[in-house]
């Protein structure tokens, strides 16, 4: 089970959790993670908004929009963010910190291009509202994950099974095509990614090691930021299905 997946990290980090006194190094590391993540989200937001502005006028796709969403280029737009996630997690240990950071910005920008499509489906106002609701809940969950003394590693297998279960549930809905069931799947998705936010925050905190050099620390911060960024985006997308108003 996913228990096995956490085996090594449990052994490696089990001893350090008791220390809760304020640690300046840890604090600056976590702030760095949050800054990277927030800047990534800002880039995504700006890119998505700008793309949506350029792609649509008066409810019609412009030439730019047509190229982006209907030509074969749409493959690049759809797949590039996934490619970047794979690339970054596979190569991070061989990249310099500035290179990894640039890759992360490029990823965030491309993610914005992909996400522009939600502006075509939902009203701007409901997107902004959902964004702030996501931000508030993300903040609270992450803060909880950061401050709690409870060991959340057990939650990892819990969340992993949740994701697997969601994939199986979405399969059933392929032929049932029930919108109520889609709604229930989204509700569970919100719960899973809410849990992952707290879990990842604690895991990122556990990854911190005082003796790390600047390069190692920088890489850890970027990977941590990527994890939280993906939690945020997924939480946002699931919430949007409840809170978004269709145009």
């Amino acid at each position, binding site marked *: 089970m996913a228990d096995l997946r956490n*085996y090594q990290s449990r052994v490696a980090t089990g001893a350090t959790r008791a220390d809760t006194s304020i640690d300046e190094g840890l604090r600056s590391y976590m702030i760095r993670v949050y800054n990277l993540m927030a800047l990534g989200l800002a880039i995504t937001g700006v890119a998505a908004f700008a793309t949506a502005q350029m792609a649509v006028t008066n409810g019609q796709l412009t030439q730019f929009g047509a190229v982006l969403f209907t030509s074969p280029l749409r493959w690049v737009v*759809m797949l590039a963010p996934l490619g970047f996630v794979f690339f970054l997690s596979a190569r991070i240990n061989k990249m310099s910190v500035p290179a990894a950071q640039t890759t992360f910005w490029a990823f965030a920008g491309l993610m914005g291009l992909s996400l522009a499509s939600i502006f*075509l489906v939902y009203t701007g106002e409901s997107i902004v509202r959902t964004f702030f609701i996501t931000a508030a809940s993300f903040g609270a969950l992450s803060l909880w994950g950061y401050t709690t003394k409870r060991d959340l590693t057990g939650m990892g297998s819990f969340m992993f099974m949740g994701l697997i279960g969601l*994939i199986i549930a979405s399969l059933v809905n392929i032929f*049932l095509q029930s919108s109520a069931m889609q709604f*229930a*799947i989204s509700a*569970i998705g919100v719960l899973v990614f809410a849990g992952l936010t707290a879990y990842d925050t604690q895991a990122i905190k556990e990854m911190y090691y005082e003796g790390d050099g600047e390069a190692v620390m920088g890489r850890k911060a970027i*990977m941590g930021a990527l994890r939280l960024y993906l939690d945020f985006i997924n939480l946002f997308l699931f919430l949007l299905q409840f809170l978004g108003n269709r145009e």
Partner: protein
Amino acid sequence: MAANGKPGFGTRGVPPISAANPYLGVTTPAGGYRHYDAATGIDESLRAFMVSVYNIMVLGLITTGSVAYLVYVITVTGDPSLAAYRDDGTLIQMTETEYLTELGAFLWAAPVSYAVCFGPLLVLVLTAPMWRNLGPSAAAIIFMTVAVLIGVSFSGLALTYTNSSIAQMFFATAAGFGGLSLYGYTTGKDLSGWGSFLWMGLFAVIGAIIINIFIGVPAMDFAISVIGAVVFAGFTAYDTQMIKEAYSNRFREDEARPLAISGALDLYLDFINMFRFLLALFGTEED
């Protein structure tokens, strides 16, 4: 187990086999005694353990397959006279030749359809935190429950895809799975680094599935399935190595049995998900 590139067991604190003493037994952390034949490099107890993992996993797959087939047979009929009616008096027709029986209408209507859809998820999530402390019989019961519930969910696949394409994809998945698991078992490379990579991939796939609910591009379904299949192919090799490692690192001899069952569940889920994405890619949909 040359995970670190060393001969013999690359795990913590275990002495390597010396050429002078080819039948060196190694004391495991469990205090057990492991037999290994330096001439062939085969560790009998590890081998027996992995065989039991695969046996349990295959048993789970057979259960799922039989349940899926059985449920399909009793819920779907080709004979309109056996079919169930909607409230408005029309027959519940799924495809040109398939009608739902009364049982089928019961199974695929709320609230039972919710139980079918979310049953596996519920059992998996609720039992996830327990696995560390489960006894062998409790673990076996949970595993079989999951296999049966997934079988019920999967019975609907036969409504969407033609039976021959389901069979084809099953064998294709089995072949791919076997190769990947064998790779994970035999490779000298340390695959633990794949963990974060696969985990991120899984996140990205889920994100893409949600985005595609809004925009509904069939081409993107295709892309999602490709990546989903790749991610679970990776998990197959990764999990195989992790199960092997967990066996070597166990502390007590009696941990081996629950470990075999939880390992089998991991591999079973990898198989099922790989099958699901391959079917979405190459399966032929019924009209």
